[in-house]
């Protein structure tokens, strides 16, 4: 995906957001560090262009909520969480670049809930590459890409990397290719009916 395709994709996501949340009142965007933050800022601007109120944008650093901290070394660089507004009663749209195992989103949900009680949390991702390890799905997906588990999806943004680009990098070919994982449209699956018993 080059810069033009990326902008188009984001504009499409913004329209979908405005479509589902008319006016965008009571909606805030929270980007997951690192690349979710510039994406959230861009989406917020695009939402305004699409006729909505520009949502406020916060940043979430999930390092302290990772489930693999004791397995990785050295310690990951922390950039800090910065949510300069209350999320109580708001619709929070979490924004990230790539949805993969779902573990990052799990951490983000835990952290968000320690900040308050949003009315609803939704998830917007630029790329869904499948291979979920947790029962998590996105509400807004820019592009669904079928990937092999050891491929690497690299999102580059001009704010962080100097240019806009999405690369699918296949790992070096193995002697025996891995069995293709059934992906039976998991990313496109309809969301389960909203449960309200805990409301």
């Amino acid at each position, binding site marked *: 995906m080059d810069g033009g395709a990326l902008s188009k994709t984001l504009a499409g996501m913004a329209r979908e957001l405005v479509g589902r949340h008319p006016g965008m009142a009571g909606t805030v965007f929270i980007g997951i560090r690192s690349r979710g933050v510039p994406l959230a800022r861009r989406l917020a601007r695009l939402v305004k262009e699409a006729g909505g109120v520009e949502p406020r944008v916060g940043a979430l650093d999930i390092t302290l909520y990772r489930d693999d901290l*004791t397995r990785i070394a*050295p*310690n990951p660089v*922390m950039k*800090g969480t910065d949510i300069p507004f209350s999320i109580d009663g708001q619709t929070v749209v979490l924004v990230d670049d790539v949805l993969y195992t779902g573990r990052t989103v799990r951490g983000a949900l835990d952290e968000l809930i*320690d900040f308050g009680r949003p009315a609803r949390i939704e998830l917007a991702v630029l790329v869904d590459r499948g291979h979920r390890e947790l029962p998590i799905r996105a509400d807004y997906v820019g592009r669904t890409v079928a990937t092999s588990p050891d491929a690497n999806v690299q999102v580059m943004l001009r704010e962080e990397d100097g240019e806009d680009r999405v690369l699918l990098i296949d790992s070096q070919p193995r002697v025996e290719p891995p069995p293709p994982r059934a992906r039976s449209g998991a990313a496109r699956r309809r969301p389960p009916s909203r449960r309200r018993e805990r409301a």
Partner: protein
Amino acid sequence: MSFGHRHLLGIESLAASDIQTILDTAETLREVLDRPIKKVPTLRGKTIINLFYEASTRTRSSFEVAERVLSADSVSIAAATSSAQKGETLLDTAKNLEAMNPDMIVIRHASAGAPHFLARHCRPAIVNAGDGAHEHPTQALLDALTLRQRKGRLKGLRVAIVGDILHSRVARSNLWLLSRMGAQVVLCGPPTLIPAGIHALAPVTHRIEEAVEGVDAIMMLRIQRERMAGGFLPSDREYHMRFGLTEKRVKLAKKDVIILHPGPMNRGVEIASEVADGPYSVILEQVTNGVAVRMAVLYLLLGGSAEAVA
């Protein structure tokens, strides 16, 4: 970022980049203290033992708060109520605690080198919370964090450290840290409280007016009565007259000078009350930063994989 240390035994063994890493991490973690729910699950399932052979209010509670905020489980042992009173040696105590399989021991001890001794003989990560008159690394780090927040940098700052240099582990750790980060330190105190040979590390003066002239920060040290059996000082009153930080003396420093004190303060001895409570004082900011710095140390030592670091 890499923090390739298993223990935090002192500032002397840290590189400038290590200090930078700890301060940057602390700066980020400080935000957690302002959250509505001041707890993150980062060190869930880690056990920390706080082993305090000397009295402490700030350091111990600060470590305990940091441990709780990061969700570690901790046990605090004060020597006054422990088996040390029954004659158990440090090594025996440590070996017994080690058998409970903690991930970290935070130790304060009256003897210099006690944490280093534990690091040689025990498996858990060791953090020095003050060893005799040797080092108090987390204090120097929180002082540095406070200085950096207020002044925007450490390099090139002029800092006076005034008081009982002889007995002060805070002075030693700060001297290492500040010189490593490119600040200029001047030491000041009565000749009886200046250790021999320290002239090699920093300029020394016996006149406080000379020490504080034009400095960016003044660190006042506590007169450590408990470590003074002999005649180090004629009287508190005379000390205050010669070396106490008064409003008049503060005026000799830069206009935007900040005053630090590691606590506990002897009001009217090393520091006048109007200075301690005055606009230049950052003493309470130091305490908040202390929690952040200790969170950073715990995170950097216990957050990553121990095997991969060792």
